[in-house]
């Protein structure tokens, strides 16, 4: 079985290795760098930069831990970016060596599907190579979406990708779009000392999250002096001597050294030859697939962001495993019921399953348990008390329908609930499980207990 995979992001490279494990002869085509957007322009580099920003913020506040600072803390952006580049390079090397060990052939160039069984690759050296394929997996990902009236110039109007390579910490930064990416960059540059303002068309930051999570994040942003204007858009901009001036729909004007546009992602389904082969795409350009990750053309699969399902690296990876299984005779289907997601703001957000509003909209009868981290000794010990755990369960069965955590280590903590949901467990199952003390995980046990009003570290409710 010869499989050609287009794109080597978290969808493509995982699909490649799984296919090879199952005995396929695999070729991966990559036109930028192995690891795709996730590794080179997304998940990993942002977390590397955030780590620098967070440690700087923490160090500035080191007095609260009883440590005296004698001298000055200076974030050196060149060194910060270099550290990030090194981390990315190590990970890239890791994937290249995984490919080698599994016998996955890597072709570096741009691919076009010339038939359901041939992929044409324009190699970097200008040569064109035709690769025969029994099956093709398209995993070309996505890129920052552009506002037509505010195109990226890489200098004053920048994308999330440009922001990873800045040579100077901007004094002021206007972020258009306070979704996941916008808020992460707000924390990143705010932490490094930029004066950050965010503008969001929706009525709240991270509008895909549970409303209570947005509310708490907005307050935490306010504490960091990050300004947020919701329900407004940028109507026009004007370049100035030292930056750019934005005019907002509410009449406000904001001047900033740079504007970072993070309004969403555009899908990479153009120029692949999809139309000629009759591969169906949707209104956003997403390649339409079934739960087996097959397109409408037999033998051609698509995974990851380009399918427009859920634009998450870990979903892409799972889709890659499912596609590989289906091709290699191990039938499998995607299940989007339990997909944890993480937002690396400060504090972090972890979520899985239904938001409260979704459950209500579906007419479900629910019970909610909540628990504030500030009621835990561990949260005080580590100096991070803001945030909470919220668990939504089905009133009839007690099964957990969703959970939302904002607070220290939320991105790691959420997985306990993901496993519980996958196993169909109830909030009581979690509440009755002994959780080690002193840990932040106690917050999950307490929130689960609170579903039945039985949390311990909560004041008695007054009538």
């Amino acid at each position, binding site marked *: 079985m010869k499989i050609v995979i287009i794109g080597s992001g978290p969808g493509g490279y995982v699909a490649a290795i799984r296919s090879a494990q199952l005995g396929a002869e695999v070729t991966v085509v990559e036109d930028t760098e192995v690891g795709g957007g996730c590794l080179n322009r997304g998940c990993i580099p942002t977390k590397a930069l955030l780590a620098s920003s967070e440690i700087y913020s923490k160090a500035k506040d080191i007095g609260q831990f009883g440590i005296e600072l004698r001298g000055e803390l200076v974030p050196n952006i060149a060194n910060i970016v270099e550290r990030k580049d090194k981390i990315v390079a190590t990970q890239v090397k890791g994937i290249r060596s995984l490919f080698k060990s599994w016998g996955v052939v890597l072709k570096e160039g741009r691919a076009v599907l010339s038939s359901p069984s041939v992929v044409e690759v324009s190699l970097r050296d200008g040569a064109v190579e035709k690769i025969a394929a029994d099956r093709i997996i398209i995993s070309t990902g996505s890129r920052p979406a552009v506002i037509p009236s505010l195109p990226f110039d890489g200098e004053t109007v920048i994308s999330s990708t440009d922001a990873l390579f800045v040579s100077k910490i901007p004094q002021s930064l206007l972020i258009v779009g306070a979704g996941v990416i916008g808020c992460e960059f707000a924390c990143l540059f705010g932490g490094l000392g930029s004066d950050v303002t965010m503008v969001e068309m929706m009525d709240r930051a991270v509008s895909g999250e549970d409303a209570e999570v947005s509310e708490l994040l907005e*307050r935490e942003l306010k504490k960091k002096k990050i300004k947020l204007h919701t329900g407004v858009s940028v109507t026009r901009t004007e370049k100035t001597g030292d930056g750019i001036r934005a005019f907002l729909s509410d009449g406000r004007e904001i001047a900033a050294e740079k504007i970072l546009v993070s309004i969403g992602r555009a899908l990479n389904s153009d120029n692949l030859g999809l139309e000629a082969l009759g591969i169906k795409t949707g209104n956003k350009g997403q390649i339409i697939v079934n739960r087996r990750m097959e397109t409408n053309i037999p033998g051609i699969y698509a995974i990851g962001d380009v399918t427009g399902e859920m634009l998450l690296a870990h979903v892409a990876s799972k889709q890659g495993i499912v596609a590989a299984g289906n091709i290699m005779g191990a039938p499998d289907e995607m299940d989007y019921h339990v997909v944890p997601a993480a937002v690396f703001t400060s504090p972090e957000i972890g979520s899985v399953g239904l938001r409260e509003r979704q459950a209500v909209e579906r007419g479900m009868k629910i019970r909610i348990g909540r628990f*504030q981290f*500030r*009621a835990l000794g561990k949260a*005080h010990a580590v100096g991070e008390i803001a945030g909470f755990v919220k668990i939504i369960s089905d009133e009839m069965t007690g099964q957990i329908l969703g959970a939302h955590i904002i607070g220290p280590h939320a991105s790691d903590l959420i997985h306990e609930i993901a496993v519980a949901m996958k196993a169909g467990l109830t909030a009581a199952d979690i509440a009755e499980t002994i959780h080690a003390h002193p840990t932040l995980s106690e917050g999950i046990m307490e929130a689960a207990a609170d579903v039945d009003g039985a949390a311990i570290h909560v004041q008695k409710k007054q009538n």
Partner: protein
Amino acid sequence: MNPEDARYHKEHTWVKVSGRKGTIGITDYAQDSLGDIVYVDLPEVDAQVEADSEISEIESTKATSSVISPVSGKIIKVNEDLAETPEIINEDPYGKGWIAVLELDNPSDAEDLMDATEYTKYIEDESK
């Protein structure tokens, strides 16, 4: 203990009226129950506030709780010092720890609130 020149709301806030202006804050009982205050979500100047509704939120090391406005009016001033040093509410809830000044819709509304004696009795009953 609870100053005579203030009027008190059952949600443990106070207002001191002077002409058309009312200064509001939380009571000593409220700051004591909250414990160490770490953050005050200051309201915005020019915002209209209704009596019995939330005007601010206060975070302490123990809890996050709403500050309920005892009166209706337009916010004309907020205590910016609370942004950097919220703990002044713990230290001086009726003085330096004031939260906002309102231009009152109706200054006589405050007369419907509890006076110091009534409030002192009210918190004694509540803590029983």
